């Protein structure tokens, strides 16, 4: 078989058109080659967190072909500034910063973890040393308390809302002193050490600490518990391509269906991931209202 010069030029034209089409790539193709930068909040040991999340993003990268870089944020709430000031594409956020990110930055909640017990929610707890003789809210007066961070649901918003409900409007005068530990694990440690009479933390972190060292459960007593609030949620920038977000969701939701995915979930101590929705955060909006934190209710619902 021979080819004419006309046929050759047609082939060349087709190749050029194909190349032009490839150059005018859809956003997905761009996103797949560009590195995504995902933030992590300092929930407990940051090195352990980096290791755990590192395995998760490695798995997602392998499945999607999208390179992902993790960056740890020095404190909770920093995400809001980082999204505005830096090239952050998404973050694993606690329910309070997730709510702020959704409502103020228009970010999209993507997926939340499901615990081995089958829950995708957590709770805030207020605890004290068992030998402290503090058992009721009234007995907390004049004591010291360790909060986690002003930008956490379980570590600040929940106790603030609870105290307000009980007629305590000024924590500065109610407690002898209060301070922020920066992480849930540190708030637990502060009470164990006796550096604070009371502490607040996320129940999941407390359970993790107890699993590591069962003597903690014998030393502490939980006084109050919040309603269920969403677990740490992966939120992504609204302007990321829709098919990229869908791809990430699909990979995360299907993790429990593959052997490699199950291995990663095992190291994370999770059963899987579930689809997150803006409405999941209504409880947090309600708490913010009760706590009297103005200007932080939904703008975009």
């Amino acid at each position, binding site marked *: 078989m021979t080819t004419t010069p006309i046929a050759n030029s047609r082939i060349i034209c087709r190749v050029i058109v194909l190349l032009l089409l490839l150059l005018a790539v859809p956003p997905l193709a761009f996103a797949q080659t560009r590195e995504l930068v995902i933030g992590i909040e300092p929930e407990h040991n940051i*090195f352990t967190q980096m290791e755990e999340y590192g395995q998760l993003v490695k798995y997602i990268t392998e499945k999607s072909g999208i390179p992902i870089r993790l960056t740890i944020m020095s404190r909770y709430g920093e995400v809001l500034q980082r999204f505005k000031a830096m090239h952050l594409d998404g973050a694993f956020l606690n329910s309070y910063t997730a709510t702020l990110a959704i409502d103020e930055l228009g970010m999209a909640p993507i997926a939340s973890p499901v615990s081995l017990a089958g829950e995708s929610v957590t709770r805030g707890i207020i605890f004290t*040393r068992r030998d402290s003789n503090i058992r009721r809210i009234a007995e907390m007066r004049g004591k010291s308390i360790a909060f986690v961070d002003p930008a956490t649901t379980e570590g600040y918003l929940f106790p603030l809302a609870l105290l307000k409900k009980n007629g305590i409007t000024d924590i500065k005068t109610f407690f002898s002193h209060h301070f922020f530990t920066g992480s849930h694990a540190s708030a637990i440690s502060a009470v164990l050490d*006796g*550096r604070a009479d009371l502490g607040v933390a996320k129940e999941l972190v407390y359970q993790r600490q107890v699993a590591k060292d069962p003597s903690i459960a014998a030393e502490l007593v939980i006084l109050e518990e919040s309603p269920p609030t969403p677990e740490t949620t992966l939120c992504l920038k609204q302007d990321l391509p829709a098919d990229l977000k869908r791809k990430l969701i699909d990979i995360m939701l299907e993790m429990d269906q593959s052997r490699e995915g199950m291995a990663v979930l095992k190291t994370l101590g999770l059963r899987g991931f579930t689809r997150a929705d803006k409405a999941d955060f209504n409880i947090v909006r309600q708490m913010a209202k009760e706590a009297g934190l103005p200007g932080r209710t939904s703008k975009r619902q």
Partner: protein
Amino acid sequence: MTGIRRDFQKILLALLLGALLPASAWSKTVIGVMMPGNSAYFQEIHQAFLTTLTAKSSAGTTFEIIVQKPFPDPVALSNAARKLLAADPDLLVTYGTSATLAVLHEKSHAPVIYGGVYDQFTAQLAGPRATGCGFKIPLTSLLRHLRELKKVETLNVLYCSLEEDSVRQLNELSELAKEQQLTLNRINLKNREDLKKAPLAKGDAIFLTGSSVVAAMLDEILALAKNHQQPSVGIFPDRDEAGITIALYHDPLAQGRKIAEIAAQVLSGRAPGDIKPEALRNTELMFNLKEAKNIGVKIPFQLVAEASKVIK
């Protein structure tokens, strides 16, 4: 005759002025203080006590402070208590359980305010004549922090059997050791000879109980700890940065202020038995990174972040 009248007028005037002056201008408040072993921790409490009490007292009030610093053996403590009572004090201030018990053992009506007592409710010191404040350190936390530095299977516990507080801490550690599969190497230090003979090599780390005798030998103990490459933990602050690796302690200044508040109430007429003894709980955590490096252990960054004080 005129001269006699003038003298009489002067005496009358002096008597009238005297009657108008407050009682405090006439009387001096005598406070007897018992501080066993000249402990730095007790000294800090005492300084804060004096400063606060002076600030709380009305102008013109004068205090005579008589301090006894006996070695904490029963005979020395008893002699010191008798010497203090011989001065007929208005108030007795004692530091630690042994000193408090020694004073309470003597027949006297002088009210007793105690401070620096470890786990005072177990010590059962409060009564019609005595009240005060004590502290409690979660020893489990100290052990937890220590184990983040090094695997500890045998713990050298340095205590003094003459001091009740130190023995109470040893007993508490013994209970914890049972729960945590930890072996204790109990080292009773009553003098420097005991330290020379101490089998420190048997242990993996050193626990310094709150004893004035142990505190008096701190430099020698820490030199031995360095030789054996063992981290040390204690429940008193290491103010002079002698080299304790981890200290979890109650602020002595807060205790001093508290006993001054109680003393002011007692001096104004309130019975000690009517004042509830207080347990102070808020602690401070100190890490000595320099010393940790010297003995070849690394304090995890996450743990350092918890500290109230870090020595670099």
